[in-house]
């Protein structure tokens, strides 16, 4: 962890086990709480991180224990940028179905990215030519609590 002025950077690398998801989620929640975000707001950021790490482990690294998931948290003032990177083959975000589409409503999967988009301000993907996907999520922590409620 690095801290300077009103900025802070935390980085963690985990192996591709579902049991490790919570480690990364807890960092997100504590970072938010330390920045003055209330319990609900911190929870929703943690939830977005949980979904991103789960996707990286399951769909990116396909549970290959030799492959790692890296998470970085950059807090500058109220702006939090979180990057979750895997070592997988990548995917086409345009092919991810809309879970609100009536024909997808009763599907048992496909809501993770939707939740991430709901709870964060912006997200984008970058795909490394040599393999690996990075999901960059940003959130302005000064926008107040009740992330899900405000967007429902």
């Amino acid at each position, binding site marked *: 962890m690095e801290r300077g002025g009103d900025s802070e950077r935390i980085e963690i690398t985990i192996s591709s086990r*579902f*049991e490790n*998801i919570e480690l990364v989620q807890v960092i997100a929640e504590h970072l938010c709480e330390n920045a003055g975000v209330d319990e*609900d707001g911190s*929870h929703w950021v943690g*939830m977005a991180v*949980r*979904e991103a790490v*789960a996707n990286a482990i*399951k769909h990116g690294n396909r549970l290959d224990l030799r492959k790692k998931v890296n998470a970085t948290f950059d807090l500058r003032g109220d702006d939090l940028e979180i990057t979750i990177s895997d070592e997988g083959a990548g995917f086409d975000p345009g092919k991810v179905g809309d*879970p*609100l589409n009536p024909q997808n*409503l*009763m*599907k*048992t*999967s496909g*809501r*993770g990215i*939707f*939740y991430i988009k*709901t709870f964060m301000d912006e997200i984008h993907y970058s795909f490394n030519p040599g393999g690996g996907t990075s999901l960059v999520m940003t959130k302005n922590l000064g926008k107040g609590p009740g992330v*899900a*409620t405000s*967007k*429902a």
Partner: protein
Amino acid sequence: MKATTRTVNGIEIINLQGKITIGAGDSQLREVITNALNSGKNNVLLDMSGVTTIDSSGIGELVGSYTTVTNRGGKLKLLHLPAKLNELLHVTQLITVFEVYENEPEALASF
């Protein structure tokens, strides 16, 4: 995740406690629903009050359980929804799918 079950008026009340998340509870939920159906209990009331954490996998299992029970001619309803789970069902519009109750006698009478 821990699940305790009891039967009232032929309705299987399943009290879920703990996490329903990827790799920790999602498959257990499927198992407990399958057990209820295999023992002839097609009407299921899931008491969610003890659920501490749920993610998209857990939500997916709830949807899958609903479909499985409905396809067997039964009904699956939810009781005592924690606020955060309620939010997750709202934003995905799944709240329009599930019947949700805050009161057990009322829930039982609805079957």
